């Protein structure tokens, strides 16, 4: 029985509580971090409360201001087709798995190969990012308050660079396309009166082992990405809420939403900015127009395939979810047995970091998930798949065969006739092929040829990318200089891109091939000289 004072207190407390609005559509697992999502379901004891708290705060601060400056576009018609994914074989890639215990394993055919490497020393592996040549892996380790970034050699798992302190989240590191540097989010000043600590953006130069701040302290900075659009971050606080892209000197506003991924053509998937790195409504951006895909609730972009956008949605309170494919309409497929927490696109697959006990990979061709248990690994691991052509090779282990022979070895997988640089020394050239861009003839992913020219100490001199004509850069780039003469070759285009984005670039179409030569250290004349030396593979 409550006395008078009790009843008064009762009334005041209930009046106060009645002012608390309850967010709609929150029937989802914790989503402050990717790991948080996994831990939620796995019931693990470790909880990244700090990041989760901030993520939740940001969620609550979510508002219509995210949409400012974007022309209203209709959400695509919703057609829900719920069906279990079919049983398809798991792709035959060698994998690297990072665990919640901080160990990193090599995995082949569902079996651990060799001994694990203790990379994170008691912290969890939060994220791993393969460099574009697949020679190195950026590993983000994190505990509750501190994190670190280290770079491993893919072949040996030996540590090559690091550690560098970072915020303990999965969205804090991104490789530069030239692999010479890495962008990181690092904790800045924690003012006693400020609600959260500040964050600054670092550029970590691997060759000099030095770092420099390229964006000063600012709270609530998320999602560092280095895509074809450039180096980007997202902010959740007005008035700059949304994505900013760095041009080497300044940060320019790209979208009121947070950029998550982009394909080679610049088509991008974004998430409402107010959620930080916690997922949310997904938007698609193409040609400067943004279209809301997610009608409501929290989704996580996984990949883009032609005109399809593939995203993930957790099923509340279960260790499963649905893959949602947007192509004009919305199609859902249930995926039992784990959450796809993040995805790495490789060839025609999206390989997931998963909360489950089996590896998950989504086939873009079959529109279905494949699963494969990994013997000896417990729940939750970060996963990257290694390109087949790069398996087991290191720069020093590259056999001393001619550049032409190495390009010829890659040629069967290419849909165009590749070109060979004329005067490159075989021991200073690395040749790999990878997926990227869009093949205009097939409508699917293009297979690209990547040729790296290095100096005596292995530093990158120039990067040559070849692909099917129409795959990649177009001629309409606003800052490009058209009609550049490349010796006797077809007319090319020159763009004085900032070094941070790979440096100046010359590109042209040669028969059925697109060829681009760029360099962080060479000037226009030297680039044109390399370009002029290139000859079609006999």
């Amino acid at each position, binding site marked *: 029985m409550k006395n008078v004072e009790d009843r008064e207190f009762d009334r005041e*407390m209930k009046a106060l509580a009645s*002012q608390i609005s*309850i967010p709609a559509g929150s029937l989802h697992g914790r989503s402050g971090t990717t790991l948080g999502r996994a831990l939620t379901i796995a019931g693990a004891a470790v909880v990244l*409360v700090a*990041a989760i*708290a901030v993520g*939740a705060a940001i969620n609550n601060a979510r508002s219509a201001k995210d949409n400012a400056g974007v022309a209203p576009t209709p959400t695509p018609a919703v057609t829900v087709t719920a069906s279990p994914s079919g049983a398809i074989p798991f792709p035959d890639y060698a994998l690297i798995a990072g665990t919640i215990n901080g160990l990193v394993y090599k995995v082949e055919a569902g079996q651990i190969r060799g001994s694990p490497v203790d990379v994170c020393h008691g912290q969890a592996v939060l994220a791993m990012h393969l460099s574009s040549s697949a020679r190195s892996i950026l590993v983000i380790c994190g505990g509750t308050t501190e994190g670190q970034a280290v770079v491993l050699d893919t072949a040996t798992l030996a540590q090559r660079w690091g550690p560098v302190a970072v915020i303990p989240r999965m969205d804090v590191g991104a490789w530069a396309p030239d692999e010479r540097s890495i962008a990181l989010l690092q904790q800045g000043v924690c003012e*006693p009166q400020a609600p959260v*600590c500040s964050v600054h953006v670092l550029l970590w130069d691997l060759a000099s082992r030095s770092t420099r701040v390229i964006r000063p302290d600012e709270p609530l900075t998320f999602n560092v990405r280095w895509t074809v659009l450039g180096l980007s971050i997202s902010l959740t606080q007005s008035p700059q809420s949304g994505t900013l892209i760095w041009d080497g000197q300044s940060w320019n506003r790209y979208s009121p939403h947070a950029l998550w991924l982009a394909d080679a053509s610049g088509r991008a998937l974004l998430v409402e900015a107010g959620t930080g790195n916690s997922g949310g409504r997904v938007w698609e951006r193409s040609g400067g127009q943004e279209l809301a895909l997610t009608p409501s609730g929290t989704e996580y972009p996984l990949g883009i395939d032609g005109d399809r956008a593939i995203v993930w949605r957790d099923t509340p309170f279960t260790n499963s979810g649905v893959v949602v494919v947007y192509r004009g309409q919305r199609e859902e497929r249930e995926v039992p047995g784990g959450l796809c927490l993040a995805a790495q696109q490789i060839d025609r697959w999206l390989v997931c970091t998963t909360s489950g006990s089996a590896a998950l990979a989504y086939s873009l061709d079959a529109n279905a998930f494949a699963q494969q248990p990994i013997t000896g690994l417990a729940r939750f691991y970060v996963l990257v798949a290694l390109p087949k052509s790069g398996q087991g090779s290191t720069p020093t282990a590259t056999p001393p065969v001619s550049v032409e022979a190495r390009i010829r070895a890659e040629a069967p997988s290419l849909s165009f006739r590749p070109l060979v640089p004329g005067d490159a020394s075989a021991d200073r050239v690395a040749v790999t092929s990878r997926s990227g861009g869009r093949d205009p003839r097939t409508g699917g992913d293009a297979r690209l040829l990547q040729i790296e020219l290095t100096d005596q100490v292995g530093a990158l001199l120039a990067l040559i990318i070849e692909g099917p004509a129409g795959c990649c850069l177009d001629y309409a780039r606003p800052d490009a200089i058209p009609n550049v003469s490349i010796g006797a070759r077809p007319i090319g285009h020159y763009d004085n891109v900032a070094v941070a984005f790979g440096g100046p670039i010359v590109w042209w179409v040669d028969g059925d091939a697109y060829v681009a030569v760029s360099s962080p250290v060479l000037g226009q004349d030297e680039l044109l000289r390399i370009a002029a030396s290139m000859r079609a593979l006999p």
Partner: protein
Amino acid sequence: MSVEARWATLYEDSRPLLYRAAALMVGTAEAEEVVQETFERAMRSRNFFDEVREPVAWLRTVCARQALGRLRRRRVWERIRVRLTVVESTEPWEQAELAIALRKLPARDRVALVLRYYQDASYEEIGDALGIAPVSVGPLLSRARAKVREALA
């Protein structure tokens, strides 16, 4: 009714109360997390609906414990000046005098007041949530109320 349907019903019915209670205890920023944790904990039990006679009361107690745990962890972090968990109040209700006074209370006092005066929990239930004897709940509430009154004066 299937188990899934029972969970959905329980969630729909109890979430507003739990959310508001959690918000009063830990703030809006973490309230949803506390509610999620509470349901996750419940759903780990395979036979929850068979084993738990009063599901709402069970959720209320666990929610309070989760909130208490968070408040205690927050204190530790504040002490070591890692302030990521301290989130700026952005909701109008959090600027109300009573809300400010509640935030100044020790964690246990705050949770006890919310349980008692918002959720109408019994002394036994509050004692269970806080890990103290039911006989100690009355004096605890009395002291907590006095602190609030003092803060509001």
